[in-house]
């Protein structure tokens, strides 16, 4: 075990030293990710980090090889297996590099990935038999090749897809590879454990630069390489252990990216079909490719939409990934006993999570329902219903001081239009408009926004006792009030964050209880 820890440290050191260098190359070559579109970051960031991970992986493996040759001939390192892994790994990295440099059309990229996966399957890295709980051992025969290709391409793309916010893809890969390492050690598959530990180390070293605020992104090169390596290493792990390890173990260990892809495909397809009026849904249901059209509704987008900051969203997803990973480990340790209990529990937790994230909302529901940018972010937006133009006068300067933009509407209908699809921190409404249907509907649809009253001089606030605060009569009073708005916003945000963490921790308890009970049965 000490040896493996040292290998991980070595890999992390390599990645830690190489990443700034790769970053410089990317900066000089203009390999940048610019903000805009589906991107949620605010500054252009170099995207070439995969190269650093790849190099760290390769150098560490080389170090292990030398170590075995010179000092410890019994150390498990399978040159053939490793060459196979890296042959495809280099291939997929090159596909990613090309995509990072010049961009590739989705179809071409997918074709190249399939080609790489075919090569890997061709040299003998295949899922030949799988154990399905309740069914038993299944020989795949000819289907081994399509199954392997689907698995490799699927996982590589899943990591590519979740690479949407700082540190998510790399952190998920770190958790998945650590768990897979522990599982491989448990099963005595030391030669496979080596790949996982090297990968975990490289990702850890890289994560220091990729964690929010990110100095460098993984890019396609990185996310494809991470996904590919995890997929192929788990195939290698399954190859001789598939009699004891069910197919669910790697699926759970890589559960988070898989869940995101599955949700994306189902969500887009269902939306496209249900969104049709009359009998057009028959035709719509044949348009299966809608499932691959990009959108801004991945799990991490949802968490940001609920009001989490990048870090908070990433923490929640790390916890969820860790939960799935521990389930995978338990499944191995219990050798598929009690699998039904674990699966039913997992199903319940997933269903609750999907509901909580709002994926079940009806088609066409307002997607930006909850307020974004609660944290002390610049460029938060405030809306104001401002027919007389005096709110802008009172608030404008104070809002500008905070870097918030103030968007004013002349009448309630315009306000509703402006609010559609926009995330805002607070909305300012003169009391005499507070009872209009537009404002009422808007208030009930955005419970997380702060609602401020802006009475004209001498006007009473009236029946609006539940409104948060009153906009001051001059710029100074407004400044003080905005400070309070920000405090309350930050407090509510922290509350929601810890509520999320609380639930994500609570879901562990039944599993721990279950494990303790089954362990005590075994002893008894």
């Amino acid at each position: 075990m000490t040896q493996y820890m040292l290998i991980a440290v070595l890999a992390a050191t390599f990645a830690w030293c190489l990443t700034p260098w790769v970053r410089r190359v990317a900066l000089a070559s203009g390999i940048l990710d610019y903000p805009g579109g589906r991107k949620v970051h605010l500054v252009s960031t170099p995207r070439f980090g995969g190269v650093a991970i790849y190099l760290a992986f390769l150098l560490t493996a080389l170090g292990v090889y030398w170590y075995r040759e010179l000092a410890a001939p019994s150390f498990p390192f399978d040159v053939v297996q490793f060459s196979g892994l890296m042959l495809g790994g280099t291939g997929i990295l090159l596909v990613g590099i090309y995509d990072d440099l010049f961009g590739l059309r989705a179809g071409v990229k997918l074709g190249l990935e399939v080609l790489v996966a075919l090569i890997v399957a061709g040299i003998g890295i295949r899922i030949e038999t799988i154990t399905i709980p309740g069914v038993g051992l299944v020989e795949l025969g000819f289907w081994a090749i399509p199954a392997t290709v689907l698995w490799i391409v699927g996982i590589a793309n899943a990591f590519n897809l979740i690479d949407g916010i700082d540190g998510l893809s790399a952190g998920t890969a770190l958790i998945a590879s650590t768990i897979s390492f522990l599982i491989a050690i448990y099963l005595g598959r030391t030669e496979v454990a080596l790949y996982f530990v090297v990968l975990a180390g490289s990702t850890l070293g890289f994560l220091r630069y990729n964690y929010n605020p990110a100095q460098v992104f993984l890019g396609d090169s990185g996310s494809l390489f991470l996904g590919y390596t995890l997929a192929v290493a788990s195939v290698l792990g399954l190859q001789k252990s598939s009699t004891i390890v069910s197919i669910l173990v790697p699926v759970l260990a890589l559960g988070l990216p898989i869940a995101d892809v599955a949700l994306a495909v189902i969500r887009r397809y269902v939306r496209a079909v249900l969104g049709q009026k009359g009998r057009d849904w028959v035709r719509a249901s044949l348009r299966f490719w809608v499932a691959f059209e990009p959108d801004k509704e991945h799990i991490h987008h949802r968490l940001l939409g609920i009001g989490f900051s990048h870090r908070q969203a990433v923490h929640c997803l790390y916890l969820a990934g860790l939960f799935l990973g521990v389930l995978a480990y338990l499944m191995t340790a219990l050798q598929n006993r009690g699998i039904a209990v674990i699966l039913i529990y997992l199903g319940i937790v997933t269903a609750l999570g999907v509901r909580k994230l709002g994926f079940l909302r009806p088609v066409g529901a307002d997607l930006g329902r909850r307020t974004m940018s609660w944290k002390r972010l610049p460029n938060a937006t405030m809306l104001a219903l401002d027919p007389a133009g005096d709110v802008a006068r009172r608030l404008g300067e104070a809002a500008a001081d905070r870097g918030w933009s103030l968007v004013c509407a002349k009448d309630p209908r315009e306000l509703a239009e402006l609010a559609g699809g926009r995330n805002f921190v607070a909305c300012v409404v003169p009391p005499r408009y507070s009872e209009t249907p537009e404002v009422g509907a808007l208030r009930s649809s955005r419970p997380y926004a702060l609602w401020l009253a802006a009475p004209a001089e001498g006007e009473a606030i009236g029946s609006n006792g539940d409104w948060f605060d009153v906009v001051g009569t001059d710029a100074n009073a407004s400044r003080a009030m905005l400070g309070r708005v920000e405090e309350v916003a930050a407090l509510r945000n922290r509350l929601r964050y810890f509520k999320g963490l609380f639930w994500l921790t609570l879901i562990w308890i039944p599993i721990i209880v279950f494990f303790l009970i089954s362990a005590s049965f075994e002893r008894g």
Partner: protein
Amino acid sequence: MGIRARKQLTFYVSFTVGGLLMLFFLFLLVLNGAIWGR
């Protein structure tokens, strides 16, 4: 040097090195009898 030329330089360097590495791993596989001669 312009960004465009630098991009192309990065491309050629990484694809040459990557291609050589792939050939090397292929060579290792062949040498160990993983592809032909089992």
